[in-house]
Every structure is written in C-alpha cells, then in structure tokens.
C-alpha cells in the first residue's frame, strides 16, 4: 500500500523507469545507451544537490526574514536587482540547483522580480561557461549574447513580476498541494490530464 503511494507521488519517475525497462528488454543497446547518457547528469546532480540542500537549510534557519526582505524584498529596486544578478552569476550547478534556494528566498520575502533574476542569471551567466563560449563561438558572439541576455533578464523580471504577485504564488502552491492530495485520495485514476496542464 505504501509502495503504491510512492509510485503515485513520483509519477514521472515511474513512467521513466517503465520506459527504461521496456527499452532494456526490447532494444537493449538503446536502453544501455540511455543509461550512459544519463550518467553525466546524475553525477552532476550528486555533486551539487547535497550541498545546496544543506546550504539552503542553514540559510533558512540562521538568516532572519528581515535581512532577506531588506536586501531582496519588494522595494529594494536596483540594489536588490544587482544583488540578485551577482548571486546568479557566481552560481554553481545546473538551474534546478537554484530551485531550493529560490523557494526558500520567496518564503522569506524576496520579491518575484529578484527571484527571476537569480534564476535566469543562474541559468545563463556563469563565468567559466562564458569563457568556454568565447572559446568555441568567438568572443563577439559570447559578448553580444551575454549583454542581450542580461538586459532581457531585467526586462523579463519586471514583466513576470507584474504578471504574478507574491500572494498568488503561495496560494497557487497550496492549491496545487490540496488538489494533488484530493486527486490522490479520491481518484484512483492517474491524473495525467492534470500533470499535462
């Protein structure tokens, strides 16, 4: 019974495992190749996620809400934006490593704009990566793309901040949790439709 619950909570994982099983049986070479392709990503994840989780939980406990609001909150304007940009630039790891940190920051009162800046910068602006890009695509390409992307990030943050405001995010997350639990308890049918939305 508990096993079924675990499956329901991790639908994506179950489906993926299913596909892998199917592949291993009916097209073994592809199956093995898929494993090999995943290997890099799994290792990358293991290198970064434990650290990020400990880091995030330490910040969550030790850094008070006031500090976060003062530096990343809703009315920090340029200072908050630049701060967020710097954090994202000196980031480590793939974009999903930023998710726990950002979620915690939102809970502690950071503004949506600044979170978007952190997330987008984390994804795009990483100094070693920029050097790499210059090497393979030319300095001009790297520089132009960097400038354009950075400008866009600030514009995007402003736009997205307008579209979403903070309370809605909390409500949405809570509503989603409730809906998911409701669906899991009341319906036995896979809520594939909900996931696909």
């Amino acid at each position: 019974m508990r096993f079924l619950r675990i499956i329901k909570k991790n639908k994506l994982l179950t489906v993926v495992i299913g596909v892998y099983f199917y592949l291993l049986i009916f097209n073994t070479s592809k199956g093995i190749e898929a494993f090999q392709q995943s290997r890099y990503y799994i290792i990358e994840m293991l290198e970064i996620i434990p650290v990020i989780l400990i880091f995030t939980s330490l910040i969550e406990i030790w850094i008070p809400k006031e500090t976060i609001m003062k530096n990343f909150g809703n009315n920090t304007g340029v200072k908050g934006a630049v701060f967020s940009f710097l954090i994202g630039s000196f980031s480590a790891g793939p974009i999903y490593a930023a998710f726990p940190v950002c979620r915690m920051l939102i809970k502690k009162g950071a503004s949506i704009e600044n979170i978007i800046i952190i997330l987008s910068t984390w994804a795009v602006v990483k100094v070693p990566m920029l050097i790499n890009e210059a090497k393979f695509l030319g300095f001009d390409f790297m520089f132009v793309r960097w400038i354009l992307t950075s400008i866009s990030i600030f514009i995007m943050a402003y736009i997205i901040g307008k579209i979403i405001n903070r309370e809605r995010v909390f409500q949405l997350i809570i509503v989603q949790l409730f809906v998911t639990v409701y669906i899991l308890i009341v319906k036995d049918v896979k809520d594939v439709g909900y996931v696909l939305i």
Partner: protein
Amino acid sequence: MDIFTLILWIVTGAAFIISLIKDKKKTLKSFIIAKNMMKSFIGQIIGVLFLIGLIMTFIPPRLIKAVLVQTNIYLSAVISSVIGSITLIPAFVAFPLAGSFVDMGIGVITTAAFITTLTMVGVVTFTIEKQQFGLKFAATRNFVSFIFSIIIALLIGVIL
C-alpha cells in the same frame, strides 16, 4: 567539479561546522529541513535526469546537425529553438556542439536560438519547477524566456 561548486562545498562545510558549534539543536533542525526538502525533490529530479538520457539517446546531436544543415534559415531556427527548449545539455558540451554548428554552415541565428533556449528554457525541468514554484510561475517564466530567447537570437543575427 568546477570552481564555484568547490567554493560552495567549502563555504557550506565551514558554515555547517560553525552552526554546529553555535547551536547544536538548531543545526539538527536544519538537517531535518534539508532531508524534507530532499524528499520532495529527489524522485522528480532523478526522473528528469533519466528522461534527458532518453531524449539524448533518441535525438542525438548528429541527427540534429544533419537536419539543421538541410533546412532553410527560418525553419532551422524554429527547430533549433524547440530542441534547445527540450534539452538540458551541460555548458561545456553544448558550446563545442554549437561551434560545430557554425562550422557546418548552420547560420548564426539558428545557433544562437539553440543556445539561448538551451540555457533559459527548460521543458524537461518544467515539472520540477512547477512543483517548487507553482504552475503559473513556471509556465510564465518559461514562456517569457522562450520569447526573449528568440528575440535575442534574431538580434544576434542582426548585430553579428
């Protein structure tokens, strides 16, 4: 492991030790918080990573290149931005690949579209992002990022 990751490990390790010395109970509490965070996270992320492996197996780079070389500029830009949105190739693999795009004569706009969507949009990470931040946030961010990626790619085509 790149230098930022290393620095993060060192900083976090030091912070953890300091935290342990200052207040053992609080540190233990942080451990529990971290564990709960991991529980909500780990199933999804492993699923996503293996899904990427699947995608990489069935849409290998050589196939992408072969398709892109043959199609005209606008169609190939569209294709490369779609592929870029779906994939999550690490940077140091993506750039040589993009470099080879240019060498093979696939235009600047297409290459730029590939890279911008690759880094800024994540259809694959969408499920996790949705779970962590809510559907509206994830959908909005990805959608707006996609639009801007295209704009950036076009601008690169104009400037360079």
